[in-house]
């Protein structure tokens, strides 16, 4: 394997990192590749791809809040500048250290801003009422005043108890097509003397009721988030049903807790049974002859 192929393999490992474990994976990969110079250069695109896909959060410079690093937040032209619409600033983001710096003011699109701001305030209220430690960002779409992106991420990392988890949801609100389309992704990693992972993906499309209009920003935004709240609630309930099905049906069908006899195996008899089967088989042969 040449150096480029090794870096490519390393990048693939990084992209599979469970929530909150990118540094652990990076440490392992560094040790395995043992070529820091080419690694550092070579895996930056993978780190960037990972951070954007996983909705990694940034401390917005000069603000008390955090914002989401994602494709929607990425500014054109410069690979490492991201937008925080809430503080109306952009900042540089270092994909290795995960640090944000060099904040600069950004003038929002005047047509889209009122509705975006209303969506943001409803989203933050929703976040506060259903997520323990969540971060949300709401983006307008450049060149459009009728399409918005809502993104939510919640992380829990507990390395001392060997588990971590991430909930991501992303919605595109299209006021012209009158739909919300989105996805919910949940990842959980449990790794005490093992490696168990929950991975879910769920896509949904919800038509918007007629009362939701750009003119009626505040009321429309709160209705939109009520729809999202309902769908996410339904999803979490359906996840419970999936758990019940897997536990009550699939798991039981794979292996019984005890044999049909409801008691453990009598191993002396297991060897004896075989003997018995051989005896009766030879008897059969004897009777026929």
């Amino acid at each position, binding site marked *: *394997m040449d150096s480029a192929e*090794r870096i490519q393999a390393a990048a693939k*490992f990084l992209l*599979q*990192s*469970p929530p909150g474990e990118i540094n*652990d*994976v990076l*440490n*392992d990969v560094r040790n*395995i590749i043992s070529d820091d110079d080419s690694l550092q250069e070579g895996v930056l695109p993978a780190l960037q791809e990972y951070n954007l896909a996983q909705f990694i959060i940034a401390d917005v410079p000069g603000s008390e809040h955090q914002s989401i690093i994602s494709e929607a937040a990425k500014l054109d032209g410069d690979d490492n500048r991201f937008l925080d619409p809430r503080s109306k600033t952009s900042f540089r983001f270092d994909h290795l250290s995960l640090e944000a710096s060099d904040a600069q003011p950004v003038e929002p699109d005047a047509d889209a801003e009122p509705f975006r701001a209303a969506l943001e305030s409803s989203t933050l209220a929703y976040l*506060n*009422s259903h997520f*323990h430690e969540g971060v949300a960002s709401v983006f307008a779409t450049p060149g459009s005043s009728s399409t918005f992106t809502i993104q939510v991420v919640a992380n*829990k990392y507990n390395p001392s108890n060997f*588990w971590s*988890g*991430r*909930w991501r949801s992303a919605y595109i609100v299209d006021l012209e097509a009158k739909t919300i389309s989105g996805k919910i992704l*949940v990842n*959980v990693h*449990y790794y005490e*003397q*093992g*490696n*168990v*992972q*929950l*991975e*879910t993906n*769920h*896509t*949904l499309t*919800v*038509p918007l*009721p007629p009362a939701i209009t750009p003119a009626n920003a505040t009321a429309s935004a709160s209705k939109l988030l009520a*729809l999202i709240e*309902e769908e*996410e609630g339904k*999803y*979490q309930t359906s996840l419970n049903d*999936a*758990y019940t*099905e*897997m*536990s009550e049906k*699939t*798991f039981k069908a*794979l*292996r*019984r*807790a005890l044999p*049909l006899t409801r008691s*453990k*195996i009598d*191993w*002396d008899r*297991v*060897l004896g049974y*075989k003997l018995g089967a051989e005896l009766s088989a030879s008897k059969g042969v004897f009777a026929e002859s």
Partner: protein
Amino acid sequence: MTDLVDSMLDLMRRLPPTRVEENVTALVNICPDYADDLLGSVDQPLKLKTDRATGREYLACDYNRDGESYRSPWSNEYDPPLDDGTVPTPKLRQLEIKANEAFDTYREMYFEGGVSSVFLWDLDDGGFAGVVLFKKSLSPSASSEPSGSWDSIHVFEAAERGRQAHYKLTSTIMLELVTHSDNGANTAYKKPNSDSPTMDGIKTNGDVSLSGSMTRQTEQDCPVQNQESHITNMGRMIEEMEIKMRNLLQEVYFGKTRDVVYDLRSIESLERQRRQRELQKELVGFMKR
């Protein structure tokens, strides 16, 4: 510098269990010198093979592999055939045949299907070692039905000490469960008197996958009367271990991972809970006065 194999094992403990084969192959390509260490310590899903001589299915893993060939426990033959493939001594082969019969009975009683295989090999110090394998897969008849697989890998060492034997057992169980859901426009489910217009035209689609492996070890001394005692001793130890691990898997898969989802998002409004707590505090304060 951390040991290279430790880094590889740590990496495998973090990356998705569903991709273990692909990732082990990548690691072997990066560090070919460590292939044996890696293949010997990372458990991979068992492969199903068919014995050419008897037509019976058996399981293939690193323990019955010689080069590119795998030995069948039923005919003792390698596939593709090997002239000088490693086989157990005639005495140990006799025990292997009996062990395969006994654990096949065990398989039928607990798994009610699936495939089992037992492989034994002589150790340099006079004792012997072996691996007991079980695999069961559920293939759904429709995509909406859950699918799953269970792989057990029990590796043991037996050292005879007079009329006692000391057993070391390392057990790994790999379990994968997947459910798929696809709801087109939800109108079909709309209740006749439902006044919820938001139910109209909602489309959802998703997968839930729980997969992984857990490993446990145990040691025990047991009396030995004859060769067959090893089968009853190992049988009891493995049965005990699988019962324990099945409970553990149940707890981790359906308990712990679900708890983490609820640590991320709450179905109930947290805002309401916070208000209730406030109210409670006020009441307590009021009562104390």
